[in-house]
């Protein structure tokens, strides 16, 4: 952030943005190319790999059975975890999750949870006793900026790919039967991150842009175009007008992405 190289880069990025352009020739409101591949991990109940430009995120979903929370006895449990794997960046270190990976996991979790993307009540096996627990593990494989949007997309793509085991209850015992049913998905939240560099708003910040930007705002938009989760990050600020502009950008981009992916 404070190295001389990035300060020189900041100048360059600023000059480009003044002309309405980005270092990689994108417009201010353009996403990098999005590529999604599903079902590549056979051992997982669901999986997806997302490429957002050079940023690469792999998500695996495991489905197990467990106890529901006391306050939601009829609902399945969703758990999201994120690993910033050391292969992804020279700045990632092995070890317990730091504040960045915890924030990433919680922002992805909030987008899925608050939009009610999964029909939780259909994950209930026996109220108060047994439910399906859905583990969403976000694995960042290459960090080239905007991990939030890439991870949120990959998590949703993996959930859409997830198959749940068929079961029956015989004499109070749970028996897994042959075959699978798809995970009940109700909504397809899309998270759009907008960065602020010198009072200009840019969509889908790349790594170098992230290193020089003041702050970012991520908004998860559901199928109806409503906002279901927001997270501001970074050490800068937004004016209220900029936030409303970012909200408009998020609406537009979410529609665009959803159309492209047929969600």
């Amino acid at each position: 952030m404070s190295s001389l190289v990035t300060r020189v880069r900041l100048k360059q990025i600023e000059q480009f943005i003044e002309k309405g352009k980005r270092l990689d020739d994108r417009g201010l409101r353009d996403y990098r190319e999005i590529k999604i591949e599903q079902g590549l991990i056979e051992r997982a109940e669901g999986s997806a790999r997302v490429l957002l430009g050079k940023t690469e995120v792999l998500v695996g979903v495991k489905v197990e059975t467990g106890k529901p929370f006391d306050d939601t006895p009829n609902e399945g449990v969703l758990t999201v975890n994120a690993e910033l794997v050391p292969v992804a960046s020279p700045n990632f270190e092995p070890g317990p999750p730091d504040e960045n990976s915890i924030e990433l996991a919680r922002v992805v979790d909030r987008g899925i949870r608050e939009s009610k993307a999964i029909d939780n009540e259909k994950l209930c096996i026996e109220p108060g006793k047994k439910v399906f627990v859905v583990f969403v593990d976000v694995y960042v494989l290459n960090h080239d900026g905007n991990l939030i949007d890439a991870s949120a997309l990959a998590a949703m793509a993996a959930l859409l790919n997830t198959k749940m085991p068929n079961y029956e209850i015989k004499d109070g015992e749970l028996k897994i039967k042959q075959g699978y049913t798809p995970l009940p998905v109700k909504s397809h939240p899309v998270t759009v991150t907008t960065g602020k560099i010198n009072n200009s708003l840019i969509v889908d910040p790349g790594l170098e842009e992230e290193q020089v930007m003041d702050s970012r705002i991520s908004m998860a938009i559901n199928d109806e175009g409503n906002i279901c989760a927001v997270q501001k990050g970074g050490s800068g600020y937004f004016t209220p007008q900029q936030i409303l502009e970012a909200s408009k950008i998020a609406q537009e981009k979410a529609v665009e992405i959803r159309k492209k992916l047929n969600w």
Partner: protein
Amino acid sequence: MNEKAEKLIDKKGIRLDGRKADELRPLKLQVGVLSHADGSAYIEHGKNKILAAAFGPREMHPKHLSLPDRMVLRCRYHMAPFSVQERKSPAPSRREVELSKVIKECLEPALFLELYPRTGVDVFVEVLQADGGTRCASITAAALAIADAGVPMRDLVVACAAGKVDDTVVLDLYDAEDKLGAADVPVAYMPSLNAVTLLQMDGILTPEEFEKAMNMAMDGCKKIYEMQKEALKTKYMVVKEAEE
């Protein structure tokens, strides 16, 4: 959730705790409550009771975390085990780690970090009792603690939440409204710079409701901002009287 059947707002638009939609809970702010901290503040926001202490600018521990061109701000948001209904483990939860990060990032824009290279400021927030909206009350108190420590600031940071309860956008949610309501939008704001330094949301809001909630929260912030300034002045009024 069977409690959901119960209405959180009655026909006259009065909430369960007797407030109107755009009314804040009662607040009490006190500055300089700890003798060994460089700056400190205590806030009672409804039933929230929160203590904040600021230390620094001082040498960083460990030293290798210091930065050659600016000061490092560190924040720890922590809830006491007895602050909530069911005992909370004192080990930091993922929620506390995330809140510590967003609180740090919402205070940083207020500080002149580049004026204090190689130093660190530590802010510790202890939630003694929680009743919804603790991150906002923590920010309000933490900013006061930093100001009390004599660290120059561009403006005080003040925070307040708005949200949606029974289809109505309301100000300053308390615990029950937070849990049973439809959405929660905490906002931290620097009023004289018109800068939003923290914004989060969960729940579902239309873009119009989101705008309304954000504006309502900022109006709430402006009211608390006056109380913050008053609390700072009060501390020095007391000193003055003691001298006379």
